[in-house]
């Protein structure tokens, strides 16, 4: 009998994905007209590989064991350590899941692509991105980790500039490349310092870091927070996120937004395990940054005219919420609030999965809409629910899930965060209690802003009359794209209706992250109302609604008539309907502080009768506009004065050589 251990499944998955990366490109380069074959091979390999990997991750997650193995590569002088434990499996599962469904979705997009000859490249980058993400998670060695991390950054960069013919995409590519390498610089520094401290690159020997003095530990912690946080899109290092996540193809965005943003979170957690007890303010710092990011990103998401940009900002918000939960867990862990700490950690970890499910669904849905209409701006959509009923329904499920509406999955993780805050506030007094309460209220505001942002996206894109010719001619997507969306939507519903199924899977990672909470955690989770009663109630209500809809909505009483929407006796036209800009305007003008408002350029010709009126809203992230751009331009003007050193004349360079040699000689003789 073949013994299918998680390790073998994982290795099989990596091998198949590697084959799926190379083969399509080779075929496409050798046979010019074999695009569909290349597509089939690439997608097939991605599906098969991710299926194997997912099976391995789930096997390990249910079995709660851990596997470590080494690959010695003597000729290169390295000894690669890999480790596959419940925490890794918890993050690997969404990686493989979304790789598979993204590949399925991509077949639909690529089949009707107007640019032949790009499929091979697509599958090369796509499958290699999947491989490097899978490697980041199981790497148990600094070198391998950084290697896989670079791979992840590079292949995602290639996917961001996939539509490289457009000028804006190339500009975005630069921003992404710079951002991701700035974060990598901090990580290189961090791992170098750790190497100096421990004398080893293996993660298993990092346990000696537990003996570090607090000041060094805090330094490491801050480096990790900046390095991993900026890759995750944590405030205030999130500015690259809306740019990069608006440019790449939608199915890649599902992968990037759904899981790639979580891998820094994973690495951060992996690193935190090794550190000694940190001062309480470290936890509060993470909480504060997470919450500030969540608030600012979701407020900006409610203003974006571009569908993908809006969703990208919403990713920033969700990453903020994950860090919010983790920071509170850190804070409460030190303060010995066991019950809230457990709730925060479980909530944050569950949100990692939840966000992978609903954000992939929303990005797939956005991809389907963009595929159908060719437009990315909300102001060119509208009326799509009539034209794409299945996609529209799934998008509404996704929007509801991200807005934490019952009975969908977003509610469960946010519930845990709320309950943790309530509990922590209840058991503390004075200023500490006030902090928890303030955080709770701000979390409520985030929740209501999500509702505003999502009802705006869905309401403007799906409802009403089509606002453009393309939207009028939109068509429903094919089965492959639909299945990819339906998988995510099904998971959103499953986790929402039966959260009890997922909780046992979180206990493994929880025991690794916080061994002191592990014994109490099952008991705490059992007190939550998410048992069989919850599932049956949800199912009953859904069944009731389904039956009601079936009997009543199929057969409206009397003869209901269909007429135009009543607009004061006029004939309705799409130009009369509310716009995306109008929908967010009230919140923008009344609730947002002025520095966050996008710059608006309004030109009006002063004549008696209404004349030409121009109104334009610039799409730029406020942090980018206010802080980063001035900083970088200052930096570049400072660097400009050094540029004279590189004169480009041969004799100057020869003089440099000469001077350096003299200096080196002098140094050699003097020492």
């Amino acid at each position: 009998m073949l013994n299918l251990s998680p390790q073998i499944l994982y290795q099989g998955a990596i091998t198949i994905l590697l084959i799926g990366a190379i083969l399509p490109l080779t075929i496409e380069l050798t046979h010019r007209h074999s695009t569909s074959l290349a597509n089939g091979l690439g997608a097939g390999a991605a599906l098969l590989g991710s299926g194997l990997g997912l099976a391995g991750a789930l096997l390990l997650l249910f079995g709660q064991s851990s596997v470590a193995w080494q690959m010695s590569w003597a000729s290169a002088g390295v000894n690669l350590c890999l480790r596959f434990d419940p925490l890794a499996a918890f993050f690997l599962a969404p990686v493989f899941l979304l790789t598979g469904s993204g590949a399925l979705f991509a077949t639909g997009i690529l089949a009707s692509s107007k640019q032949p000859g790009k499929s091979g490249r697509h599958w090369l980058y796509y499958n290699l991105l999947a491989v490097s993400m899978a490697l980041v998670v199981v790497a148990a060695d600094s070198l391998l980790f950084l290697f896989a991390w670079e791979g992840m950054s590079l292949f995602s960069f290639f996917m961001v500039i996939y539509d490289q013919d457009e000028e804006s995409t190339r500009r975005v590519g630069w921003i992404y490349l710079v951002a991701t390498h700035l974060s990598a610089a901090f990580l290189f520094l961090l791992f170098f310092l750790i190497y100096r401290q421990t004398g080893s690159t293996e993660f298993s020997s990092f346990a000696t870091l537990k003996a570090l003095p607090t000041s060094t530990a805090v330094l490491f912690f801050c480096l990790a927070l900046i390095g991993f946080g900026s890759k995750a899109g944590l405030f205030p290092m999130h500015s690259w996120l809306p740019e990069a996540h608006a440019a790449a193809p939608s199915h890649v965005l599902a992968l990037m937004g759904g899981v790639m943003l979580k891998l820094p979170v994973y690495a951060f957690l992996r690193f935190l395990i090794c550190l000694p007890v940190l001062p309480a303010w470290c936890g509060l710092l993470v909480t504060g940054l997470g919450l500030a990011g969540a608030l600012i990103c979701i407020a900006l998401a409610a203003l974006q005219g571009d569908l993908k940009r809006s969703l990208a900002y919403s990713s920033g918000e969700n990453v903020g919420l994950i860090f919010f939960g983790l920071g509170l867990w850190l804070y409460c862990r030190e303060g010995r609030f066991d019950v809230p700490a457990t709730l925060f950690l479980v909530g944050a970890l569950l949100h990692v999965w939840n966000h992978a499910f609903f954000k992939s669904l929303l990005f797939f849905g956005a991809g389907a809409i963009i595929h159908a209409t060719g437009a990315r701006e909300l102001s060119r959509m509208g009326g799509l629910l009539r034209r794409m009923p299945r996609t529209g329904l799934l998008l509404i499920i996704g929007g509801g899930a991200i807005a934490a509406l019952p009975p969908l999955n977003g509610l469960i993780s946010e519930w845990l965060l709320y309950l943790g805050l309530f509990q922590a506030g209840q058991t503390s007094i004075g200023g500490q209690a006030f902090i928890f309460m303030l955080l709770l209220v701000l979390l409520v505001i985030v929740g209501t802003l999500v509702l505003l942002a999502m009802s705006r996206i869905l309401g403007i894109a799906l409802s009403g009359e089509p606002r453009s010719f393309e939207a009028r001619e939109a068509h429903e997507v094919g089965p492959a794209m639909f299945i990819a969306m339906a998988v995510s939507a099904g998971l959103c519903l499953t986790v929402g209706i039966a959260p009890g199924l997922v909780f046992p899977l979180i206990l493994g990672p929880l025991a690794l992250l916080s061994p002191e909470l592990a014994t109490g955690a099952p008991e705490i989770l059992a007190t939550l109302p998410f048992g069989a009663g919850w599932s049956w109630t949800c199912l009953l209500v859904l069944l009731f609604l389904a039956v009601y809809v079936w009997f009543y909505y199929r057969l409206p009483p009397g003869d209901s008539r269909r007429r135009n929407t009543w607009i004061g006796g006029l004939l309705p036209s799409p130009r009369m309907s509310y716009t995306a800009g109008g929908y967010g305007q009230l919140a923008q003008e009344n609730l947002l502080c002025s520095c966050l408002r996008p710059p608006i350029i309004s030109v009006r010709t002063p004549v008696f009768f209404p004349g030409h009126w121009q109104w334009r809203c610039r799409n730029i992230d406020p942090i980018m506009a206010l802080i980063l751009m001035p900083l970088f331009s200052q930096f570049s003007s400072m660097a400009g004065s050094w540029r004279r050193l590189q004169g480009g004349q041969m004799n100057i360079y020869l003089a440099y050589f000469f001077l350096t040699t003299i200096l080196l000689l002098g140094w050699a003789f003097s020492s």
Partner: protein
Amino acid sequence: MIFSIFFHLLILFGLAPLLAGIIARVKAKIGGRQGQPLLQLYWDLGKLFRKRMVISTTTTWVFRAGPLVGFVVPVMISLLVPFGPVAAPISFSGDLVLFAYLLALARFFTVLAALDTGSSFEGMGAAREATFAILIEPTIFVVFIVLARLAGDFSLNGMFVPVKAGFNTPAGIATTLAIICLFIVMLAENCRIPFDDPNTHLELTMIHEVMVLDHSGPDLALILYGAAMKLMISAILIADLLRPVTADPLLGSLSFLVVLIILAIMVGLVESAMARLRLIRIPQLLVGTTLLSFFALIMLLR
């Protein structure tokens, strides 16, 4: 449990339109009019349920799901709320989160249904509904925190119990402030004056009424019934805190009903005495309410 659910729903379905009738009657009396019969809403609902519908050609199933969800959600949240001496049939630790998010579910579908008509009126109402919710919800949660801290319980059943603290103690002051906040939230959530006027249509300063302009027949009946139930549940939450403490169930029920009716009369009085606020004043009032609820919280933090 099945019995208590039915009993709860019976009270809700039976009394909700009456409460709306009392408010209308009070307003009419103060305005010097005779006013509509107390049971007018029952007749209206009966008539609307038998009418046929006119549905916009622009709309989809979302347009019809709005009223349905707007009706089902108040029914569901009523099961989490104690009706005076009658305890809530479904109660668990943390059900206040479900309470808030079920309301959000109703808001989500009402807003989508409004946008589904493609009309600028409804879009405007939808934008306002979603925006003002950002200002209302924090107050609700702070009030919940205050009450949870006083009661030491995270279920609505345990939190919404008669006030026992004297009015000169910090707990009493905090509860009083919480009740005032709840009253303002009730007016805002149910779109009463001074936030919104349930009697006028097609005004550009409208929020809720303008969102349901295109609904007719049974769908409109669902909306009206849902709104009446939501109003009643908000009033019940306040009445739960204000009702006198008695061990006698009959006396307790009667006194609870009296408090409920007094609250309805008070809403009528407020609506008669005040004009609708200008739209830009509404956020200021709501933020003020949130601050007030924070004061209540600070009273309890020592």
